[in-house]
């Protein structure tokens, strides 16, 4: 289980989407690391999960940015930049896979990086949204 409750920001919809992201990334890592099954037999499922994750990241970031707009979140531009860099990081690997093939090693490398990026983004950057929401409630 990759998810930790300390990642909660206190906004239910965002938290649910984060949990979904961690769950799917966890499943992806389990699949990529399941060396008892040949890579050939894991490849289709790995591609499918990669597609889903890529799509879900875009969906979640869009949704989260809309939420930030709705609460007049002051750091929205900085946060949008971080989302953009995150998506570019994924896209770079999608290109690598297209050109060099979906090798087990590249998939391992990609899933490991995605894991660290997600932990940092949700564990650090997104926490500031939660802090802002709480500070508004206190001042309201």
């Amino acid at each position, binding site marked *: 289980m*990759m998810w930790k409750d300390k990642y909660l920001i206190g906004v239910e919809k965002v938290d649910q989407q984060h949990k979904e992201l961690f769950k799917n990334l*966890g499943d992806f890592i389990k699949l990529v*690391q399941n060396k008892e099954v040949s890579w050939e037999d894991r490849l289709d499922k790995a591609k499918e999960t990669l597609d889903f994750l890529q799509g879900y990241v875009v969906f979640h970031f869009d949704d989260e940015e809309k939420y930030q707009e709705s609460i007049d979140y002051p750091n929205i531009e900085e946060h949008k930049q971080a989302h953009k860099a995150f998506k570019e990081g994924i896209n770079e690997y999608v290109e690598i896979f297209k050109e060099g093939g979906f090798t087990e090693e590249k998939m*391992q490398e990609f899933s*490991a990086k995605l894991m*660290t990026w997600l*932990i*940092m983004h949700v564990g*650090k950057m997104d926490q500031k949204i939660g802090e802002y929401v709480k500070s508004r409630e206190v001042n309201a």
Partner: protein
Amino acid sequence: MKAEYVNSFFAATQDVFRLMLDLEVKRGDLKVIEGLTSSKDANIILGVTGDLKGTVFFSFPKDMTLKMVNIMAGMEMDEIDVFVSSALGEVANIIGGNAITNLTNYNYICDITPPQIIVGQHKSISMANEKALVIPMETEIGEFDIAIFLPEN
């Protein structure tokens, strides 16, 4: 070698370990060494460019490396494979990035180059035989080193 570098890298390591691994980090006594050899199993080299030019070298023992990735991924790891070494490289990269941000507080503007990962002990790492400052780091899952070689321009 200046306290600013040590403080910047130590603070960044503490922040990243707390956030990503739920671990506290203590600093051991600083050492000065000449020439670098990887004394531990998983090693990461970051290049530094800008106001400071040089190399930062992270060195982790195998057990600790596996445990770190276990904490992040929530699953057991039994060998330093590409998944484990990439995750470790990225943790070092994030520490380096945060340290570079901390260095701006001391008016050093720098950048880091992508991590180079070396798995295996006793490989020598060419740093022109200059002196490097080693910060030993202690956590409850093991000890690791960060060696800093940053001559000022």
